[in-house]
């Protein structure tokens, strides 16, 4: 996940070996979805307090300029993918695993957090491939369906 909080752009990702200047692809999961690129600045453990509490995550500062990040609204971050993104209506898609089937991106709200998901095939209909929770720290109206709360298969 990537998010801008207090003016700093942070990346939390299950990748422990991102070198400075590595390209990160970002997907803003709020329709109309948009994809953009940014780059890693450096490891930054102060980014660990940005809502993702998963011990497997590594935290980096990333460049905010031109990344299209909305303050306090996390985006899905992808490393190691150099393919192209397409549009399906308001949704962005990309064949992340090069199997010929496009992946779709989605988020929903639970009582006090966000659930971000990646699906092979249409969201909620296809196969859930990736899931990440983001803690908001305030109460909101839940919108999540049971099948998007993870785990990924």
């Amino acid at each position, binding site marked *: 996940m990537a998010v801008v909080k207090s003016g700093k752009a942070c990346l939390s990702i299950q990748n422990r070996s991102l070198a400075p200047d590595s390209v990160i692809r970002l997907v803003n999961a709020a329709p109309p979805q948009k994809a953009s690129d940014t780059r890693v600045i450096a490891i930054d453990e102060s980014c660990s307090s940005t809502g993702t509490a998963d011990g497997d995550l590594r935290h980096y500062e990333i460049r905010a300029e031109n990344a299209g990040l909305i303050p306090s609204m996390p985006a899905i971050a992808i490393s190691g993918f150099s393919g192209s993104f397409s549009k399906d209506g308001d949704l962005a898609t990309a064949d992340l695993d090069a199997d010929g089937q496009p992946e779709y991106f989605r988020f929903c709200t639970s009582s006090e957090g966000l659930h971000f998901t990646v699906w092979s095939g249409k969201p909620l209909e296809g196969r859930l491939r990736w899931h990440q929770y983001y803690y908001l*720290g305030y109460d909101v109206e839940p919108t999540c369906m049971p099948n998007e709360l993870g785990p990924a298969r």
Partner: protein
Amino acid sequence: MLSGSQWVSHFPNSASVDDLVEPFRTNVRRFVAALQQAHATVAIAATLRRPERAYLMHFAFAIAREGADPNGVPAKAGVDIQWVHRDAQGAPDLAASKSAAEQMVQGYGIVFKPALTSRHIEGKAVDMTIEWQNNLVIATSNGTSTTITSAPRTGSGNADLQKVGSSFGVIKLVSDPPHWSFDGH
């Protein structure tokens, strides 16, 4: 006092178990004590979210992002905020009112409409991360010792630990990893 960013520091949320209501407060204390006795690591992020803060967040968002009429916001006891800003002639200034509400939205760092009611706002919920190493030998509410050998070794994902929490009246909400409450909501 007029609406604006100066309100953001008012009515801060709490991470103290002391601010929970009874009997949930005592239940959480007993559960956390059992966890610590078992050498689990417990980090509490939030307990009481003050209803005054929820009111301010909710209506600031409604005015700034949803076009709500500042003059139509209901008053709340203990929150002497003026949502309607006025121009030099004393007429309502909608643009100034909306701008002040937007300052609050940005100060709170909110991107979704905050709820007015919740278990946190009632003082009946706690957000905490719980982790441990190896097996967890922990006492349930009636003092019986149980050994948890299952994975993951986290409060958010371990069903056996969640049963222990239930014995204390501290119930897991599965959809939000850090969230526990008096009834699981």
